[in-house]
């Protein structure tokens, strides 16, 4: 048996207090397509970065082609024949395709001289090999996203890589481009290279992969063959999903209050091309927490951005309290009683160099200061009230947002929107990167708000949170609502399966 191309044993990696990888083992044989599967945040990206040398693991060993490599750097990993194709192509957009390929593959000649003829030839040959219909002299900025991805793949092929990593390569590809890609993957396999293939589309894994390794919470759960020697499928979709989510849902969530009021928000056939969401039909009642589940990129944040007027809808109708309305910008959304606690709190949720009180009062300027004249006393009172009510831990209400921990920043962001006394509260990943204590406090606050008659939409990639908090769960997949489940009876299995399963 030929030696393994790659072998990772017991790899651990932490970022501050967050343990991203807690002992992952993985191997790749020559001529194998090995799929890597896991929920959002299971540790796939971190693992890939360990293999490409972008992250140095805290412990564990890394063997490449039979030899232990202790200090891997991105340059070293390329020399060892590892090539990675990311979701977002990293090409120079003002250079031509052949220049990009040349920059990746060519060694410097004497005096940095470029052999343009040779460069052109190489590019033509590589593009032909993957069957891409792209002219080498085209500027990358003129290419579509999938075409750029094909150029990336050409680079990987041209480098003669023995280990090719593909991170959700089909996310932006059309059907025919997917077929091209699958051809390339099979081609690589026959030539004896190994492919690590990451995808959320289970059907692709069944079509391409020889083996699957499932990651969960930073650990490798198991590695299984997709087909038996006789060519029969050994795994089912159900089994894979169970392996991905298989854990207990902690029962630390506050009890659900079942007093649901009238419909606050009703969406009919909402579509938005910029946000890539289509035909959204959804309603939320007063006192209800609607969980919005789905994979990263399924369109959940995009839906929130439509409701908050950041990228207004192209078509469809929004009814709030039974009145049809158009939300054109955030300013208007605030006036209508829609609040959005954004996902990226450091960029959008809190203005870090400004004090807590000023952050909290930002969305209520016109209510608090009707003549646009600042009243510092009223502002401080408002700040103190929320610092107290939400238990924000800070040296003083005048402490800068940037001096707070993640959980407390999140509470400031939440406070800003509670101060507007909204009818509809949209929370985007409200507990991402928040420590456990603050997390359960935020959950309690959300529950209290619902009990007071707010309609709450909670976007979350944290399955236990979705299951523990939601009265109903809307699962999104590829820009649409795939399924709406009852919160009390839904299971991790049923949510994941709705998020993943091919239609």
């Amino acid at each position, binding site marked *: 048996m030929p030696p393994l191309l790659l072998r990772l044993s017991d790899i651990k990696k932490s970022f501050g207090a967050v343990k991203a990888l807690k002992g992952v083992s993985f191997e790749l044989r020559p001529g194998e397509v090995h799929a890597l599967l896991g929920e959002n945040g299971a540790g796939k990206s971190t693992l890939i970065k360990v293999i490409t040398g972008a992250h140095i693991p805290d412990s564990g060993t890394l063997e490449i082609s039979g030899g232990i490599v202790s200090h891997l750097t991105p340059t070293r990993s390329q020399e060892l024949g590892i090539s990675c194709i990311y979701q977002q192509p990293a090409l120079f957009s003002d250079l031509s395709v052949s220049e990009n390929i040349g920059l990746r593959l060519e060694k410097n000649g004497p005096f940095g001289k470029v052999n343009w003829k040779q460069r052109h030839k190489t590019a033509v040959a590589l593009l032909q090999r993957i069957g891409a219909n792209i002219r080498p002299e085209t500027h990358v900025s003129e290419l579509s996203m999938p075409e750029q991805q094909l150029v990336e793949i050409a680079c990987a092929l041209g480098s003669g890589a023995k280990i090719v990593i593909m991170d959700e390569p089909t996310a932006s590809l059309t059907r025919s481009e997917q077929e091209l890609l699958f051809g390339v993957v099979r081609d690589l396999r026959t030539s004896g290279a190994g492919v690590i293939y990451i995808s959320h589309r289970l059907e692709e894994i069944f079509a391409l992969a020889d083996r699957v390794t499932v990651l969960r919470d930073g650990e490798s759960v198991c590695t299984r063959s997709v087909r038996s020697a006789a060519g029969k499928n050994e795994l089912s979709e159900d089994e894979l999903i169970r392996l991905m989510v298989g854990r207990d849902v902690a029962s630390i969530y506050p009890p659900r209050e079942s007093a649901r009021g009238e419909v606050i928000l009703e969406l009919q056939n909402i579509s938005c091309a910029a946000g890539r969401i289509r035909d959204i039909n959804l309603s939320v009642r007063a006192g209800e927490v609607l969980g919005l589940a789905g994979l990263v990129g399924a369109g959940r944040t995009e839906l929130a951005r439509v409701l908050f007027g950041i990228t207004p809808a192209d078509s469809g109708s929004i009814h709030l309290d039974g009145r049809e309305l158009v939300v054109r910008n955030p300013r208007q959304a605030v006036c209508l009683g829609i609040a959005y606690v954004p996902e990226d709190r450091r960029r959008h949720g809190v203005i870090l160099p400004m004090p807590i009180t000023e952050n909290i009062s930002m*969305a209520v300027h016109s209510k608090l200061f009707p003549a646009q004249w600042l009243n510092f006393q009223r502002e401080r009172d408002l700040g103190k009230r929320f610092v107290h009510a939400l238990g924000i831990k800070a040296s003083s209400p005048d402490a800068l947002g940037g001096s707070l921990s993640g959980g407390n920043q999140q509470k400031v962001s939440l406070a*800003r929107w509670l101060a507007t006394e909204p009818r509809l509260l949209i929370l985007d990943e409200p507990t991402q990167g928040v420590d456990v204590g603050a997390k359960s406090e935020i959950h309690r606050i959300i529950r209290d708000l619902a009990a007071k008659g707010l309609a709450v939409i909670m976007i979350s990639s944290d399955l236990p949170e979705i299951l523990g908090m939601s009265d109903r769960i809307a699962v999104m997949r590829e820009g649409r609502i795939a399924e709406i489940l009852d919160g009390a009876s839904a299971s991790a299995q049923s949510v994941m399966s709705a998020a993943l399963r091919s239609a």
Partner: protein
Amino acid sequence: MSPQTRFIPKQLLRQEFLLLMVVLLEVGFFLCTAKNFGTSDNISNIIRHSAEIGLLTLAMMPVILTGGIDLSVGSLMGFCAVMFGVITHDWHVATPPAAALTLLAGLLAGAFNALLITALRLPPLIVTLGTYSLFRGLAEAITQGTKTYRSFDSDFINLGEIHWVGMPIQAWIFASAALFFYLLVHRTTFGRSFRAIGFSPEGTRYAGISVQKRTALPYLLTGITAALASLLFTARLHQARADAGMGYELYAVTAVVLGGTSIFGGTGTVHGTLAGITAIAVLSNGIGRVPAVFKAGVGGELAALLTGALLLIALTAPGIGNHLAKMFAKDSTNLEKLKPSVSQHAQKTPILPS
């Protein structure tokens, strides 16, 4: 607690305070060396000569606070001066309505900048670099590069000469403008939004504030202020010329930055800006009165040289101060105490895996 607070009180490192020291040093030095520096005549003189730049500087401050810049103010002053000449001399309009029309022209020019910057989302540096040439070019086209409008109403000329309650008129106009900008920046939601926009336009938008409308306002104000400055300029020199305000935009930016406003936006105070204006105004007046011994043979250009040096020192002093404080901290036994606070901070902001 950051390391430097232990050795030097933070207040002393504030740029406003440092600058106040600089102004006092300047005044002290010139009182001892310069001829007639401390006379009331000279003080009026300083005010009269720096009122126009001072007004532009005040108006520049909120622009820079939003993270923008307006390089067109000096040229706009030239354009407005010429417009005032045209309106009074060629259109034979009486002085008060002509002045009002001039202010309107300034406002419209400012609105033009604002429109390009907010509606078309072009970078302020590029837009106002364009209008910098455009406004001056218009002024020169109207006057054919040579024409100067002279002979204005004596009432209007008086604006540049007379005193009111012991101070030149310009002092009162400048003081009102300073009060206006102070209140705007520090006491209204407008000023608050300027700062927020300077820190993070996207974050401000997510807070439901209409960033475009709020960003437009400071450019309207620089427009109207440039027009006002052009009227003072015309009254002081008794003539309206296309080269009014030549190079003033850079003086204004220098004074604002010297006054502690970050060129990237977000931080800064109007009182700091006032100190910045004063430091430059006193310096350029005093240098002209110092005997040749002190000028080291550089002559009249010394004011510009010192202004530049002052700016660079003011910008680097806090950084050097911090650096020294850190070095001092390393040498002392406080190093151990500093360590946990650093690692705590690192834990608070983990680089999360995607």
